């Protein structure tokens, strides 16, 4: 089998250039979709019969939560590729996913708490989704902490890759176990988060937001990954050519 295409595609200068070209194609649609989705969600969608206009927080909460999980999955997949094929570019992608994912985990947590205040009367109850999101934040912080604790950049890449893979196996287990824990302890009257009676006029803006956040994530990741590639390829000749321009 001929692998040269793979190596050419996977070569850092090629991907560096490609990422630069692709970024605007993700960034601008992301901006448009997020603005459109926000307008649709906040102004056009009808209020929920039970939660009133309070449910509109879901238009920022759910996409943030989605992004936080997606970033972790990407991070682990890129880490696995980097570990198996010793591919620097994949490690660069994994390294760029972590801060983005961590920030949107914070966004999901804070918006969830803001939803909780009027619905539960307090900012924090041990809702299973919020709890799982909190554990996810700790996983991100552990990953970032391990990365920054190892001085040798290649070792940092590879060690954090192992952690990301172990973590991604754990994420669904955490989700499930937290649900199980909640089902045992929960008082039945408490309203669960994020389940308004969904209708199409409500759902459409939400789907737009999901697509917008996905594109946003890719755009952010591409910008960061270009920087991470430069950091890993300092000694290469192509970097001095690119930088000199």
């Amino acid at each position: 089998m001929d692998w040269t295409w793979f190596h050419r595609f996977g070569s850092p200068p090629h991907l560096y250039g490609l990422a630069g070209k692709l970024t605007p194609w993700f960034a601008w649609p992301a901006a448009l979709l997020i603005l459109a989705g926000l307008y649709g969600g906040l102004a056009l969608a009808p209020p929920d019969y039970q939660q009133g206009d309070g449910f509109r927080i879901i238009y920022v909460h759910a996409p943030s939560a989605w992004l936080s999980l997606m970033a972790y999955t990407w991070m682990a997949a890129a880490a696995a590729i980097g570990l198996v094929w010793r591919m620097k570019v994949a490690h660069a992608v994994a390294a760029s996913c972590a801060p983005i994912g961590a920030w949107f985990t914070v966004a999901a947590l804070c918006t969830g708490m803001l939803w909780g205040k009027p619905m539960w009367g307090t900012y924090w109850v041990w809702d299973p989704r919020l709890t799982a999101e909190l554990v996810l934040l700790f996983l991100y912080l552990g990953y970032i902490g391990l990365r920054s604790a190892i001085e040798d950049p290649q070792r940092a890449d590879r060690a954090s890759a192992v952690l990301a893979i172990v973590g991604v196996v754990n994420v669904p287990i955490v989700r499930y176990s937290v649900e199980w824990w909640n089902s045992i302890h929960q008082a039945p009257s408490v309203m669960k988060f994020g389940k308004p009676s969904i209708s199409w006029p409500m759902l459409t803006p939400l789907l737009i937001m999901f697509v917008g956040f996905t594109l946003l994530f890719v755009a952010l990741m591409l910008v960061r990954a270009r920087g991470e590639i430069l950091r890993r390829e300092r000694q290469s000749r192509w970097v001095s050519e690119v930088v000199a321009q």
Partner: protein
Amino acid sequence: MSGFLSMGGYASSVWPAVALTFGIIVWNVVAARRSFAAARAEARRRVSMEQAP
């Protein structure tokens, strides 16, 4: 308009949530560009250092 702004009484939750998410998006855009610019500046510094002597 005022009805839209008051969010049916949920304004104190909805608008902070939207503002916070928006802030985090903007911050991430800024941080990503900064991180790239820093890596580029670092690489440039290194190249000029190698060419100097």
